[in-house]
């Protein structure tokens, strides 16, 4: 029985192995698209942790990616530290700043939080763009490649894949743990959660710190994949793109958020012939998704997939798995 219940996990594992083995069949262009899609996948999943699971609709997620990218790039430029260490520094920086933001806006929710984070995001972008003697401003900051002398993009593909898998693993464990239950309780009703003994303040700060840390990780990877970073990687258009991806996929589950990022990124490339029309098209899809299928377009597919191999009428998976760790 349990072997059959694990069927979706085996299928996912097999798909991952196939993707890794046959990745070198992709031409350079589509491999680049896949890498960028995985970059957005990390961002979309961490944003869905924040906005979907905890209900903190933050608009500064891309700003955290920019903070991670610039922190890493600048530390490497100034002190010559190894690149992985720079990326770790970016993640730590984002965790700290994200935790601070989470702490400062503890009492805000809904629209106020969105406006506050929008303000923060714009301040970050303006500062990076204006302090051009430090950050090279809009001209863009040149960064060192993560894998020096890589002949193809394949090593980057593997790195992005590993980072995405790591992020999903950590966040997936978090969401499934007792803490994840607390986070969802905060989303549903903060006061009721507090009354039931959830340390609302601590978990809101924690969620902000963790989600921002993963945004910083994505940003750090991006900085050392694309040899030049500009402040616009953290602007509101990028944020809107992230919202489009996550909501179309389904913002309440990590896999659907990642799926949304990958599908939208590939479609944006595939539909390049339509030029400017792609963006309003995805705007319309976002609006229709919100209006008629709020759980996201990939959620029904995912739920059906997860229930593969389950006895008809059986309990949905996940319910028995919330034993979890100590809070």
């Amino acid at each position, binding site marked *: 029985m349990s072997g059959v219940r694990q069927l979706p996990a085996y299928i996912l594992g097999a798909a991952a192995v196939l993707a890794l083995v046959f990745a070198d069949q992709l031409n350079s262009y589509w491999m680049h698209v896949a890498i960028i899609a995985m970059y957005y996948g990390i961002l979309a999943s961490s944003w869905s942790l924040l*906005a979907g699971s905890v*209900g903190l*609709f933050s608009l500064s997620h891309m700003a955290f990616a920019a903070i991670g990218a610039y922190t890493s790039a600048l530390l490497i430029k100034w002190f010559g530290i190894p690149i992985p260490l720079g990326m770790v520094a970016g993640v730590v920086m984002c965790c700290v700043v994200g935790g601070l933001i989470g702490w*400062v*806006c503890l*009492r*805000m*929710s*809904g*629209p*106020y939080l*969105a*406006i*506050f984070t*929008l*303000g*923060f995001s*714009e*301040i970050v972008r*303006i*500062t990076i*763009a*204006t302090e051009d003697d430090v950050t090279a401003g809009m001209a863009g900051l040149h960064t060192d490649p993560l894998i020096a002398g890589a002949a193809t993009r394949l090593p980057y593909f593997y790195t992005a894949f590993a980072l995405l898998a790591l992020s999903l693993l950590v966040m997936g464990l978090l969401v499934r743990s007792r803490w994840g239950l607390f986070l969802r309780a905060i*989303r549903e009703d903060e006061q009721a959660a507090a009354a039931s003994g959830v340390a609302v303040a601590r978990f809101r700060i924690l969620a902000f710190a963790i989600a921002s840390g993963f945004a910083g990780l994505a940003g750090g990877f991006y900085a050392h994949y694309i040899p030049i970073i500009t402040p616009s990687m953290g602007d*509101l258009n990028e944020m*809107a793109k992230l*919202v*489009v991806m996550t*909501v179309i996929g389904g913002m309440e589950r990590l896999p659907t958020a990642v799926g949304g990022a990958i599908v939208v990124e590939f479609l944006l490339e595939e539909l390049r012939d339509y030029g*400017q*029309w792609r*963006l*309003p098209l*995805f*705007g*319309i899809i*976002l*609006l229709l998704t*919100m*209006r008629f299928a*709020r759980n996201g377009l990939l959620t029904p597919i995912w739920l059906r997939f997860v229930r593969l191999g389950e006895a008809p009428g059986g309990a949905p998976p996940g319910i028995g798995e919330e034993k979890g760790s100590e809070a």
Partner: protein
Amino acid sequence: MNWDYFFVQFANGAVIGVIYAMIAVGVTLIFSILKIVNFAHGDLYMLGGYCAYYVIELLGFPPLAAMFVSMVALFVLAIMLERLMLTPLYSDTTERKDEYGLIVTFGLAYFLRNIAVIAFGPFPLKPPSFIPGVLRIDNLILTNDRLVAAGVGIALMAGLLYFMRRTIWGQALDAVSQSRDSASIVGINPRRFNSFAFGIGAALAAAAGALVAPIFSLAPDMGVLPNIHAYVIVILGGMGSVTGSIIAGVMLGEAENLFTAYFPDPTRAFAYSNAFGLVILMLFLVFRPQGLFGRRHLRME
């Protein structure tokens, strides 16, 4: 100190402040009735500007008449958008309405901005002036367009205040903003006022867009910054307070213009003038979320 420079900057700040206030009043009105922050408000402002431009260019209307046409057009468009997209906000079966309102208006903004690039082109357009020429008092020089923008803006906002204080519809609007349930008990249909508030907000934004067009010209992304400024103003003036928004709008216009004018490093002054407003926004959200003159009955969350 150069007083001429100061007065020119002061006058410019007042004009910009009036324009900001017109946008912010719409945001605050929509918030007080629909309980959502309209992220697409700056894009309605942009559409209003373009609408007036095409009414002038294609139909040959005088600029001021075109502004009124644009207001009516955006009033109707906004009501259509509200009916199409925002009705789930009033349904009891919709969960987490804040989230719905945020994402839908954010998506609407994304859609409108990108469709505007296609429809109007990425290049700035400039409609003819309301009244060409400049006003000159000693060394104080102001273009007539700026005077018209400020004058018409003040008149429209005075009209709105009169409407909200002295007419039965305006009082009904205020009643809905204070309590939807009580308003419906005394026979006001809150749903009608949802559309109405959204329409009025959009019409004011459209007027602001039309008034600004001859001064700064039109571009598809022209709504982004004023939208953010509108949030600063709305937080300063207190969410839901129309008078507060008007006062805070003029204050922000002044503060930013004088900040730009007197910031020690002129190359960075403009960029940081925007950040300056945002710092005010964040400080107020943390320390005084009800704003300078906030109405306490509006919930914080």
